[in-house]
């Protein structure tokens, strides 16, 4: 009798557990066979930050930072690794590459989050990005969703490297209400036919930067 009870209980629990597992849509909890294609899903570490297999825009999936303080879209060919992701409550350094197979260009995206950066002092933030990148950056200012984006384009013809060029955006995003700032350096490295695709790639980069949003601690905003 006891054996039957235990067996039934165990079976019921297994079934319940199975149901719970089926309900979740988080890629990290799904069978790898059911995931979309792309490096972002193939790599276990990268996929642990992707929130869903539903696209937010073509080729991009929702991403939530490890410390929960910011979110963005993430490209399906994006790839990060444990060494390139440092996460603390007050700081994150997150770097990923976005490279499509067979294409001549790849992007490296360097995002760093600082909980201590108060609103204001924007000149200093711009100056930091200038001194860091070595480019004379001219920032465009956009205010949106309780954050201000300062985005500047840069371009670098690599000396002695014919047909090769670097271009992209450096950006600083300031949380408007309280402390919190994000630096972004989005660098596209192009090896061939750069002029043909530069415009489209830059637009993609610009749009991506604007998908970065602060997650408001005061309300449930983790969607």
């Amino acid at each position, binding site marked *: 009798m006891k054996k039957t009870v235990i067996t039934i209980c*165990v079976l019921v629990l297994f079934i319940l557990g199975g149901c719970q597992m089926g309900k979740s849509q988080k890629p990290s909890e799904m069978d790898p066979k059911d995931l979309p294609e792309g490096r972002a899903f193939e790599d276990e570490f990268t996929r642990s930050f992707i929130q869903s297999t539903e696209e937010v825009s073509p080729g991009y999936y929702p991403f939530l930072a490890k410390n929960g303080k910011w979110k963005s879209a993430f490209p399906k060919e994006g790839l990060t690794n444990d060494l390139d992701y440092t996460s603390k409550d007050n700081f994150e350094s997150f770097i990923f590459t976005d490279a499509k197979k067979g294409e001549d260009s790849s992007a490296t995206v360097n995002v760093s989050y600082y909980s201590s950066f108060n609103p204001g002092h924007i000149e200093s933030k711009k100056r930091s990005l200038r001194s860091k990148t070595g480019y004379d950056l001219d920032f465009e200012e956009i205010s949106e969703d309780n954050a201000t984006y300062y985005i500047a384009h840069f371009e670098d013809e690599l000396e002695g490297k014919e047909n090769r060029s670097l271009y992209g955006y450096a950006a600083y995003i300031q949380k408007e209400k309280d402390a919190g700032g994000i630096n972004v350096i989005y660098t596209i490295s192009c090896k061939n036919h750069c002029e043909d695709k530069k415009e489209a790639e830059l637009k993609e980069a610009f749009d991506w930067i604007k998908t970065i949003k602060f997650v408001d601690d005061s309300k449930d905003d983790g969607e």
Partner: protein
Amino acid sequence: MSEKVFSARELRLRITDLEYKDLSPEAYKQEVERIYFEETGEALPAEMEVFTTKQSDAISQDSEYKGTAIRFHSEENEIDEVYIVSEGTQGLNDWLYNVEALVAGRSFVQVEEADNFMDEALDHFQYEYDSNKGSYDVPIIGLGHSQAHNTNATAYLVHDKFTNVYGVNGAQLNYYQLFRADPQFEQYLKEKYPILETDRDKIIDLNTDELKQHAINFYKDKAQNIEQDFSKQDPLYGVKDFRGLFSLGKETVHETNANYPGISDMFGKIDDDYLQQLQKIAVIYTKGSEKGDKMHVVDELLGVDTKFFRDFKLHHYATKNFQLLQNVRALDAALPEALEPIYQITDNKESILSELQDAGYISTEQKATLMDSFENIEKEIQAIESLVNDMKVARDQNHEGMILTEVIVDAHSFYKLQGALESLAEELEDFPAEEFEALLDSLGKSHGIGELMESLSNDKRKYVGTELYIKNTKGSKDIWISLSVTGRICGLGKLKLLAKEEKIEKFKNKLESKVYEVFEEQRTRANTAVDYMEANPNLDREFLYPHGFSPSFNRTITRINVHEEIPRFKDTSLDMTEHIHKLNASVEKGHSLIQQYRETVESLFKEEDNIAEQIDFMEGMYING
């Protein structure tokens, strides 16, 4: 070297150390003046302004970076310079975290916070940033101890705003960190290793000597502006050639503790990976112990929250079987990685403990105690690993659920697992950390600035910690005097005596106005009443009524003679004159003792040493606050 105010090493070291004292801006300025005067025998040659991260509006108060900016300006002496003194890490726990972060080269939060603070401070001092030159039109000198050197030097390499950077017992630069923090270096490495363009994690497989050389080449122009002092016995010096780290600039190594050889030779013999594991365990142990609960140490060590296992009761087999399955799997998955560093240590316990013993850090007995402890920990961990594995296998083989006998076997394993977790916690709690205390204490001291300063002593000047003492010889005796302590004794002594004088004066005034005057008034009133009675004796007839002389009797009082005389206050036993005199005498005596002490100190030196002037200055600082 461009700086004019803190041009001597001793000055820079003492100012760097001052950052740990957490002083108010006023007290900070006073200390800078005192230190400058003590070291140079002169007053500061320029006006001083101070701006600290506590005043910062650019970075919030919970920023990791802490520091002070000092501006010196004098038209007359042609001085115009700014120092950024960054606060490092002092305690041993900090040091462990430090090494963890630095060796892995992961965080650069302080570098960016420091850059923002620097901008704000320069703006506060009203300097303009020249965007064409990419710098400020004023020398900016960075001072930093421990982690602060990594912060300053990295900020210099990334943002190029410092003119010079001085470090003491500093954490070194890290090319893994710079690969993430400096886009220009990142690009340089990508040119050298195109694989990094798409597979950045491959950096860990690249030849470390080559990477180090690339970093040194890339930043070679800045090396001439970086200078460092090291204690040979400082553990950070011991790990300065760890994988990832590289040094830039001029280095001076000081022998600061002759009792120990320093750990760099010892570390040189041990594999990098092994040292990293050792350090990882030390951090885990510290983190766990800090939480105060012995089970936390176990959880940190195993990398899993074992609360579920500890709280699990037999009847939970029916209600929490699925959670048990999940937890067993999680623990089984986490164990190999978590246990690797522990096994590395336990497998090599003999060699590491022998090295420590040979270097004189631990005794033979201590080594034996530590060996026992490591063996017991190893035994418990092996037991946990094997029990968890049994439970996992049992579940993997029984997808449809277990039959009762299997449940019983499993429950028995589970019961043993609970026991092993508890034993491990106890073993870790009993870990003879105190056996390491002397070692840790010695390493901690060698990391500090005080021990290094003490090594800078010569036969004329010596440091006790960061306090300066100067020598004089009287007869055959050497006498060491701290001018600062002398100044403090004289200055604070005088302040105390002045306060005492003031109190005595107040007391005297109160005595005059409240006691003497009131007493005199009452005495006059009483004497007047007596005179009146004597002049009009019959008016007081009523006093006789209670004694049988009723008003109907016709009797007259013809004379009243009062024999009592009320003395003056001065003539009573309550007189305070003598006491006040004694109090005044004690103040006089105090002054004369201070004077005697001063004269004794002064007499120890020659006139040309200007000792009197120096003590006056120090004294003045305490008196004028």
